[in-house]
């Protein structure tokens, strides 16, 4: 009887040990996969998500296009850069670009909605869509502008810069199709106009910022078939994250006012079949 009890006791201890070992082995490998999951409670995107078939730069079959939506700018596609396993720029104080831009996006979204825009986000939580997936989300919308949000690791802290894509070779075909890898080419003029407006409002709020948008070969912008800008805020090197958080309302306001000022000047062809 006593022996049976001993054997039972030892078996229970043995099982516990196996469970402990399994736990020890599984827990380190779980951490990265958890990080890739969207933040809990993140709302489903309010937007018509870009369907895989809408990946073409033409974007003429988007839900908005077929609904005969009024022509003109009414959607802003917000792209909080990085995410998931890509934290973007990292500061010494543990500040991660991917987290801050997501918080900024919430405020920018609110400011844009107050101006009457519909907002579509390329990511809602801590995931990392590819550059092409993010562009596809934007390219699936009719009458949209695209804003990608970044925090730099250099530059004068407390300033913000707007970038538009560098010049791309003009489109040389008459088919009416835009090559995916140069989707931004026909929109460069519009992007510059939109970028200058946003940069102007940013410069009023954040002293030391340039007064006009600059051009750079930003990968995200190249495949975007819409007026598209990158807004980069300096920088992750600040000691306290609150210094960056304090900039969010100003950045949100500048983007919303810039989009509102740009709206009357952007006429989207509304003829069915016309691009976009």
């Amino acid at each position, binding site marked *: 009887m006593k022996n049976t009890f001993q054997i039972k006791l*030892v078996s229970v201890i043995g099982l516990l040990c196996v469970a402990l070992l399994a736990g020890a082995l599984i827990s*380190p490998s779980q951490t990265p996969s958890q990080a890739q999951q969207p933040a809990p409670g993140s709302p489903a995107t309010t937007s018509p998500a870009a369907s895989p078939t809408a990946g073409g730069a033409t974007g003429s079959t988007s839900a908005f296009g077929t609904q005969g939506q009024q022509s003109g700018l009414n959607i802003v596609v917000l792209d909080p850069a990085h995410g998931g396993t890509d934290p973007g720029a990292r500061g010494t104080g543990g500040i991660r670009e991917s987290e801050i831009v997501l918080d900024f996006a919430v405020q920018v979204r609110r400011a844009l909605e107050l101006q009457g825009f519909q907002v579509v986000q390329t990511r809602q939580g801590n995931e990392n869509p590819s550059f092409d997936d993010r562009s596809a989300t934007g390219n699936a919308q009719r009458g949209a502008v695209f804003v990608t949000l970044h925090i*730099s690791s250099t*530059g004068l802290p407390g300033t913000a810069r707007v970038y538009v*894509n560098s010049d791309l*070779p003009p489109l040389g075909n008459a088919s009416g199709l835009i090559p995916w890898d*140069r989707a931004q080419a026909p929109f460069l003029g519009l992007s510059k106009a939109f970028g200058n*407006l946003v*940069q102007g409002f940013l410069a009023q709020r954040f002293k030391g910022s340039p007064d006009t948008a*600059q051009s750079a070969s930003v990968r995200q912008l190249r495949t975007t078939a819409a007026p598209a800008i990158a807004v980069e805020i300096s920088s992750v090197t600040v000691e306290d994250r609150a210094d960056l958080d304090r900039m969010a309302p100003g950045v949100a306001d500048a983007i919303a006012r810039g989009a509102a000022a740009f709206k009357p000047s952007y006429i989207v062809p509304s003829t069915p079949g016309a691009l976009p």
Partner: protein
Amino acid sequence: MTPSWKFWLIGGLVVAVFGAAIYFPILRRRVKRAARLQQQSEEQARRELTQPIAINPGDPRVKTKVFWVSDAIDSTLAPVTVELPLSNDPVLRSKQVLNTLLAGPVDAELRTLPPDASLLAFYLLPDGTAIADFSEALATSIPSGIVSEQLAVNSITRTLEANVPQVQRLKILIHGQEVETLAGHLDLTGTFVVNTKVAQEPGKPTPTASSTDKPASPAAAEKTPTPVLATLTADYAPGKLGQTESRP
């Protein structure tokens, strides 16, 4: 099999399981560290094979313009003139000026490229397209951001433009591979225009290295943004596409 024998067997197994639970994570860490060390030594071996081209003192000393940051806070480039014996061969000359650029200025804060980055190879095609292959450190050690990545590429293209007129376009590779971006922002899939007077290659994305070099003017921040008065439309209406095509 006596019960006490069973007890000791199970006890031994329990101890072994415990031991494994403690030892396994340590072993994993060691394996990871060993893999990292091996990677580093491969990179080291490659670097030793591709030692920077020694400057030949017999070459004529010429004034070389190297572009570094003008000020640690400001995101602008400024040329620094140094006298170097440079080869007349465009490939050797490019290697010499790029190695000088990589070596960095006296003030380390004014560097544009990470100190551990190196030039692995440099080729010049007959059409004026240069291919510069940098070590992985260029992508991994550079501060991530549009402004810092653009400064890095601009310093390379402008230094080549100022010293090697044969180079018209530049393609940047990282460790022999084409990469999508330098460090998450700047597009490296196309070629950068080095000599702006030369026509761009048609049909390929050709990011130009330009424009952040303008200093930000604080005075200009007072200006109100001018609204765009003219009505703008996307310039790819069918008629306009036709015009584009008819260009020579």
